[in-house]
């Protein structure tokens, strides 16, 4: 059902060449644009991502280097302190006097004070020995006696180490009384110069001032950040360290440690992140940069917009072009179609097409023009020939005078001459002569009404003389219409018909009245007789072709009617009215003047 509807709609859309062209063009263009869009967007996106990766990698490597040199600097301090003679003397000296001891202590104290005051990133500077001597910061703090050194992982690592410093992870420094700060501790064992045993410890606690400065001053975008892991995956520094420690948030740690590449991208929709990793040989730490891809791709949206906008404009231009183009192609076709419709209706004159182009449609139109012209010529020729044929037929018909009539008339003349009725012989003979002259001499198709009436008068005169008292006639023609031309030999056959079929069967004297007048711009010639009349059936078939009268001179009523219609058109011709026993009225209608 749905399929059918779709098909219907499809057919409707593609019902014209123009629409199918526009739709196909549009589909083609849209597909091309889409492919172009996808390809260019992907390409741009890849480029932006690659740029971002190399950019963040640079930043992370830089931070790694900075942190290395920061730790390096601290190591140098620890080296200076632990190799310092004063420190060793203070921690392990046995022979010096208490006064000397005091001076040494004050010298170290001053040194520590300088360090503490100049560096805000150092929480504690501590030196102590297994003999109970210690200096914590400026001397105002003390060691926490409740803590055993052996419980401290970082301290044990430093003491076990033959040489060099050790670096702790982030931890709470509980060795300094009352402070309990989260720090990173850099520690180094101090050898007793007398026994060469590692019998003392120096350590610096680093708070996160420098580290967080290093990590936070580098732009990873608005939401991006940098964090640091130690070699075991514990967090050294994270901008949301407390949230991680509280278990309220989680950070990708396993993935970082296991990652073999220097970056990876997570797929979390708008929270997709680019992780950039840099490991330090020196500290064993891993610096991780986190950037949000949608921030990196900020330019992406703009690019998308520009691409989309351009595509939209291109699409519109394409649609307009397609519309115009298809119009120019289909317009001549439409013109051709309309012309064909005209030809279908038979209007050849208006069917001709004006040519605008020389393309296929142009030559098609040309052929069409030639074809219609040819058809038109043929038709005209056909009509002409038909008309010629009719004319010759007509002429043949017109020129005929019924030979019976002639014989009968001549018989009458002879009979009258024998009877010595000279006057009558003269009248009849002159009438016959008139009749025959008119019949033979004039080759023209038409005669004036006057002449036509004269002809019928001659005919009636002869007939009246033949039928003696049985026939009377009256002719009354308006003066105005006498000169009007009429097809020849119209009245006589009708009168003849009236005599043979009307008057002849009447006992009393028959009367034929011929009247000519102009009515409503048409000429009417009326022949009335008071003869036998016709019944309805006869009246109905009076104009049929078959109803040819063998008594007439061959020019029957049908013939008269046909000739009139042929000559003047279908609205003209012969009309019969008749009442049985009372008479018949024939009206001949032809066009009037003008």
């Amino acid at each position, binding site marked *: 059902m749905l399929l059918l509807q779709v098909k219907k709609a499809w057919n409707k859309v593609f019902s014209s060449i123009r629409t199918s062209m526009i739709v196909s063009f549009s589909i083609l263009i849209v597909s091309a644009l889409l492919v172009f869009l996808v390809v260019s967007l992907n390409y741009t996106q890849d480029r932006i991502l690659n740029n971002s990766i190399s950019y963040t990698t640079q930043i992370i490597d830089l931070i790694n280097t900075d942190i290395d040199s920061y730790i390096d600097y601290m190591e140098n301090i620890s080296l200076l302190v632990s190799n310092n003679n004063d420190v060793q003397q203070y921690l392990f000296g046995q022979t010096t006097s208490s006064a000397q001891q005091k001076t040494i202590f004050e010298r170290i104290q001053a040194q520590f004070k300088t360090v503490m005051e100049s560096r805000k990133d150092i929480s504690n500077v501590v030196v102590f020995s297994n003999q109970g001597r210690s200096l914590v910061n400026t001397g105002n703090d003390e060691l926490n006696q409740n803590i055993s050194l052996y419980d401290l992982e970082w301290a044990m690592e430093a003491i076990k180490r033959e040489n060099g410093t050790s670096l702790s992870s982030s931890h709470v420094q509980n060795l300094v009384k009352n402070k309990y700060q989260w720090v990173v501790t850099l520690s180094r064992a101090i050898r007793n110069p007398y026994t060469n045993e590692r019998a003392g410890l120096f350590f610096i606690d680093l708070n996160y001032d420098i580290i967080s400065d290093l990590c936070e001053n580098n732009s990873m975008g608005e939401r991006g950040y940098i964090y640091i892991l130690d070699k075991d995956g514990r967090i050294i520094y994270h*901008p949301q360290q*407390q949230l991680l420690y509280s278990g309220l948030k989680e950070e990708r740690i396993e993935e970082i440690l296991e990652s073999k590449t220097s970056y990876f991208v997570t797929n979390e929709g708008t929270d997709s992140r680019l992780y950039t990793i840099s490991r330090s040989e020196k500290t064993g730490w891993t610096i991780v940069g986190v950037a949000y891809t949608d921030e990196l791709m900020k330019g992406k949206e703009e690019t998308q*917009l520009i691409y989309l*906008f351009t595509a939209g404009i291109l699409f519109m231009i394409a649609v307009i072009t397609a*519309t115009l183009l298809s119009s120019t192609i289909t317009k001549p076709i439409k013109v051709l179609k309309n012309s064909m419709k005209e030809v279908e209706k038979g209007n050849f004159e208006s069917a001709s097409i004006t040519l605008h182009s020389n393309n296929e449609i142009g030559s098609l139109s040309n052929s069409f023009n030639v074809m219609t012209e040819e058809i038109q010529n043929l038709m005209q020729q056909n009509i002409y020939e038909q008309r010629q044929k009719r004319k010759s037929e007509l002429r043949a018909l017109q020129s005929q005078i019924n030979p019976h009539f002639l014989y009968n008339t001549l018989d009458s003349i002879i009979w009258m001459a024998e009877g010595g009725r000279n006057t009558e012989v003269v009248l009849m003979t002159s009438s016959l002569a008139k009749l025959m002259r008119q019949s033979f001499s004039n080759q023209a198709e038409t005669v004036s009404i006057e002449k036509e009436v004269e002809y019928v008068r001659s005919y009636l005169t002869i007939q009246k003389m033949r039928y003696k008292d049985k026939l009377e006639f009256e002719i009354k023609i308006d003066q105005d219409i006498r000169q009007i031309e009429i097809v020849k030999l119209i009245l006589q056959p009708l009168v003849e018909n009236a005599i043979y079929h009307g008057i002849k069967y009447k006992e009393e004297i028959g009367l034929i009245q011929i009247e000519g007048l102009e009515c409503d711009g048409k000429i009417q010639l009326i022949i009335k007789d008071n003869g036998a009349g016709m019944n309805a059936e006869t009246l109905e078939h009076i104009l049929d072709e078959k109803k040819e009268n063998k008594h007439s001179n061959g020019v029957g009523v049908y013939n008269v009617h046909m000739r009139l219609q042929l000559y003047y058109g279908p609205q003209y011709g012969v009309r019969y009215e008749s009442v049985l026993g009372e008479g018949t009225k024939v009206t001949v209608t032809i066009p009037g003047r003008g």
Partner: protein
Amino acid sequence: MRNQKHKILLALALLGIVAMGWVLGRGVQEENQIKMVYIPKIIDNNNEFWTALIAGARMAAEEYHIDLTIIAPQREEDFEKQNALILEAIKQNPDVILVSPSHYTGTLEAVKEVRKRGIKLVFIDSEVKEPVWDSIVATDNFIAGSKMGNLAKSYIDDNTEIAVVGHVKSSSTAIERIRGLEYILGKRKSQIVETVFCDSTFEKAYSLTEELVKKYPDLDLVIGTNEYAAVGAANAIKDLGMAGKIKMVGFDNSIEEVQLLEEGVFVGIVVQKPFNMGYLGIEQAYKILKNEEFKVQLDSGSELITKENMYTEENQKLLFPFVGRQFREAQD
């Protein structure tokens, strides 16, 4: 046919314009900032519980871009003042009011008023007699109390005399913790010689403990139910020279408590997670507003910490807030 085609073209053009408008307009829409008011029992920089809780709340507010106002009475047991502050908060017409009710019954009317005004109500840390809250984030104090009970039990024999120093008698937290404690003690509950309440002051806890020690010379075990009670009692015992002889079980977390634990005055302390509590409280409130899934009752958890395990990696994180830059900013 021709007309129809024009219509199609027009529709296409309109569609294009609408699409462009949508793309351009997408960036413009901006949410109104959510406004919340939190009324804790007290703001006291010397009290690490409330300090951490407020820091957590502030950090969550920052995380979720919430306009958070915090107002509190000067004294923890002053529930009348807190009621006045709640009514004041209602006038500000925030989206959510968060309260740590000071009084199990006394705060009830004020918080009912919050609900009546159609403002969302979230409790942090404590509750009131009737469940009028949309959500509550608190330590399950019955469980926390039973953790104290479990530790205490290992130091108890048939002759042990126990005293309990509670904080505020009418507060839900004290009631629940003591209930949990007594539940674990079971029969030995009868060995509790006395339960006193210090109204959440160090001084009163100190003096009450002194009196208890005098009153019951054979006292073996003292249990404190919050920071004020535990530290006040521990200091009294320490000052009386009874440390080690009279065992102490503490509650909550502060540097002083940590030191007393290191020294062995406390055999153990049960710590709550105030930072989490504050953070989760705001988070729940946010979820309610955003129609996201939230819990009507959320336990922020508690842990038992003894001298032996106090410096493990996990417990360090529990006992000592990481005072990074962000934390400090959240505190200010």
